[in-house]
């Protein structure tokens, strides 16, 4: 990927860097010393600048607010997938049938105005949500919780209506963040209506406070608390966040973002395309991603991208058809077309092959996968799993001059345990088995010319969009007549819920904790509503009795138990045989950092955390990122 980026661009830039580095970079545009300011990108600007109350709708939490200021009950180690207490002192202690839970509160956390954070704040927060219908999840909280009471200053008793084994998983952070954020009782109890309280000068438990913000909503400047040792991060780790200031800023479109990064005007970008990484790393040696060299990206984002079928429609409701589509596609080509071959194959439906999930589920399932057979309908069978993908991709990329490790474990970590075979003949048989007919003019279904409508989400997630376009390309080459459409999220969200699509490039997938309940609970067949109506989950409308039984069995099992794990394994086998979602790669994220001013970002060499700047775990990364010098 290190193609020559011509002198035309590089030379003037280097000259520019030499001449202007000293002056330009002494201060940031908001008037803080550049060397004390960590500049982080936010993906969307806010239209409500100065609004920091997470319980007022419209607050842009990803603007550093939940990364640096919010107090979560339980936080997450994104590398191991294990939760730990933040405001809570540890995991909840539940009774036998999971209806009463004791939560101990961590001592030593203080709000930024000096008040101690204790059980009063936690109880107040729960009750505030439950008694304010204007807060989005209010109804849900009322359905789940019977009561939340204070036992003593640092102990809370939570009673749930039904058995609720996953309190921490549901109300603590797993992916990105969580809607439950503890608010200071002494402030919020004074407010008449918490749903319209902007909280422009927030009192927080996190390590940073707001120093200034842009009234146009493009940046927020945070300053480290003087008493950071009493912040959540201070209380949990005892370490000081290194940057005195953090400027969270909206950078703009891709062109602008890479130019800003190359010019050292920003230290961390959220997510870019591999083409941008190629350019940025070539133009500025200080820019790197999770891996210093190929494949650059981390493959541990817990949302695998692939194609989703609308299974309430014919012939998409037929597993033979779905398997036909699977085998009709050359995954090697798709992979190259998405991100030049970067990414870990995530062949299991629904479950993403993050490093942790690969260890927990994929590798143990490998013997079963290799033995798995499909009946092609004409008496023949095929074993569709292809373990050769990692080696093949390594060869292909080596031939292009990339430095690829030859160690098998490393290769499997890089490219996954395997993918589905490219077997057009078998695919054809499966389509015939599913009732399609191949005529001279093309494929027919029920005597009608057959066309596949494919949709992808245009405004976001290049990986998913490119994946679907690559799939379109494959199906067209296979001989299908396909339409390709991109939809804005506004349109897609409605179409996905009402089932108004046939094949979509979407990611109803996940996998971060050992317990899979959160990932699979939405696939309960009881949630299916007719096409045109909006249900609660199950946009894909996968009607599988066995899977539903497993989901329901799991709901009452402790997430830490072996039983939950076994049920998860079983679910995967059922799903594989039925193929409700065809996964391509795990979430591949190119998250570049610039070590001109700051260094020791989490990386493959030093994976103390995932590179998820936009998740609430960012506050634990701030203690590790250190200034250059």
């Amino acid at each position, binding site marked *: 990927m290190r193609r020559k980026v011509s002198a035309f661009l590089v030379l003037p830039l280097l000259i520019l860097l030499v001449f202007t580095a000293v002056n330009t970079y002494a201060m940031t545009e908001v008037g803080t010393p550049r060397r004390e300011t960590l500049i982080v990108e936010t993906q969307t600007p806010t239209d409500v600048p100065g609004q920091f109350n997470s319980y007022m709708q419209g607050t842009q939490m990803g603007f550093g607010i939940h990364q640096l200021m919010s107090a979560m009950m339980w936080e997450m180690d994104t590398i191991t997938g294990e939760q730990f207490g933040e405001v809570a002192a540890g995991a909840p202690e539940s009774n036998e049938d999971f209806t009463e839970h004791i939560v101990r509160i961590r001592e030593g956390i203080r709000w930024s105005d000096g008040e101690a954070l204790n059980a009063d704040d936690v109880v107040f927060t729960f009750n505030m949500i439950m008694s304010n219908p204007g807060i989005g999840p209010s109804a849900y909280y009322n359905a789940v919780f019977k009561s939340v009471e204070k036992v003593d200053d640092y102990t809370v008793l939570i009673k749930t209506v039904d058995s609720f084994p996953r309190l921490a998983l549901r109300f603590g952070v797993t992916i990105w963040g969580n809607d439950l954020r503890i608010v200071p009782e002494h402030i919020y109890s004074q407010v008449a209506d918490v749903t319209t309280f902007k909280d422009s000068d927030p009192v927080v438990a996190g390590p940073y406070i707001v120093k200034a913000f842009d009234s146009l909503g493009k940046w927020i400047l945070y300053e480290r608390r003087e008493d950071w040792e009493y912040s959540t991060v201070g209380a949990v780790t005892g370490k000081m966040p290194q940057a005195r200031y953090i400027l969270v800023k909206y950078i703009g479109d*891709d062109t602008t973002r890479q130019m800003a990064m190359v010019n050292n005007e920003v230290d961390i970008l959220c997510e870019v395309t591999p083409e941008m990484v190629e350019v940025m790393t070539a133009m500025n040696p200080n820019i790197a991603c999770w891996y210093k060299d190929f494949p650059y990206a981390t493959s541990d984002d817990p949302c695998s991208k692939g194609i989703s079928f609308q299974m309430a429609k014919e012939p998409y409701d037929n597993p033979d058809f779905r398997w036909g589509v699977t085998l009709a596609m050359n995954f090697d080509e798709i992979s190259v077309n998405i991100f030049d071959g970067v990414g870990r194959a995530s062949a299991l439906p629904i479950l993403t092959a993050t490093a942790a999930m690969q260890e927990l589920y994929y590798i143990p399932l490998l013997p079963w996968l290799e033995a798995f057979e499909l009946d092609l309908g004409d008496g023949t069978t095929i074993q569709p799993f292809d373990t050769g993908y990692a080696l093949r991709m390594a060869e292909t990329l080596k031939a292009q001059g990339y430095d690829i490790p030859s160690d098998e474990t490393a290769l499997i970590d890089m490219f996954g345990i395997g993918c589905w075979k490219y077997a057009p003949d078998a695919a054809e048989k499966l389509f015939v088995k599913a009732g399609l007919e191949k005529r001279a003019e093309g494929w027919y279904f029920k005597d009608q010319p057959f066309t596949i409508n494919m949709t992808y989400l245009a405004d976001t997630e290049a990986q998913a969009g490119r994946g679907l376009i690559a799939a379109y390309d494959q199906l067209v080459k296979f001989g299908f007549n396909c339409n390709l*459409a991109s939809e804005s999220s506004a349109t897609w969200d409605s179409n996905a819920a009402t089932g108004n699509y046939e094949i979509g490039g979407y990611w109803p997938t996940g996998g971060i904790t050992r317990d899979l309940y959160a990932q699979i609970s939405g696939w309960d067949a009881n949630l299916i509503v007719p096409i045109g109506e909006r249900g609660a989950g199950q946009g894909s409308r996968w009607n599988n009795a066995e899977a539903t039984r497993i989901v329901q069995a799991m709901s009452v099992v402790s997430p830490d138990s072996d039983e939950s794990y076994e049920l998860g394994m079983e679910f995967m086998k059922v799903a594989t045989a039925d193929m409700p979602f065809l996964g391509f790669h795990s979430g591949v994220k190119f998250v570049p950092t610039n070590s001109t001013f700051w260094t020791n970002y989490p990386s493959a060499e030093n994976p103390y955390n995932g590179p998820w700047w936009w998740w609430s775990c960012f506050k634990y990364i701030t203690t590790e990122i250190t200034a250059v010098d």
Partner: protein
Amino acid sequence: MTSFLKNANGRLKAGLVITLFFLFLGFVVYYIPHANPFSYNTYPRRLAPSFGHFFGTTSMGQDVFWLLIEAIHNSLVIGFIVALIGTVVGVFVGLLAGFSGGLLDRILMVITDTFVVIPSLPILILMTSLMRGSATVILMALVLAIFSWAWPSRQIRSLALSLKERDFVYTAWFSGEGTVQVIITEILPYALTWSLSNFMNATLSAIASESALAVLGLSPANLISLGNMIQWARERNAIFTNQWNWIGPPIVATIVLFVGLFLLITGYNDYLSMKRGR
């Protein structure tokens, strides 16, 4: 023809040559058999320009030359459809308003004025972003056409108003011809000369609008148009990876096509006014 060549000004000639060249690319070269240019991995990726691939290949292994030809074809088709609808509707509404007068004229003109005043881009963004799911070349053109008729109809109306005063129309009127007949036999020839220049103008602005939407990522995903080609190359970072052979041709083609059409329009108008002056 010879007298045309003699009288045509340099602009008209240059514009005509450029436009004909693009028509040739879009409607003659286009029909030379070639692989579906959209299809990925047809060729090795990122080839430099060569005799086999005049502009090399893209990061997805598509031939840039054939993409460009197809893009020119589609962009021109969109432009022509929009221009056709806009001109026909515009001329019709304009003539109707201009000749009927009275209340109908008032109503038609208020509606026309509305469409002149409404900022078109936000509504195009709105409509395309909502209907992208089903957008095709034709649909795209129809949406763009919503805003293409208002301006011509205003102009045609004032043309009609001034023509109405001229003698030959009165004569026709008095000799018992009906309004429609007068319009067809006496007015339309005038309007048509004007329409030709408007047609080119509308083509130009339709292609521009489509490109703008494409650059915002709102053009149909598998529609190969000049705007989309630029957008795809931008998405794959062709500017910074120096794949000028990829992003360059659609940009240059757009500019040249636009300048060509523009020269054609202004040259044609000059030519007309010169002819009238004689």
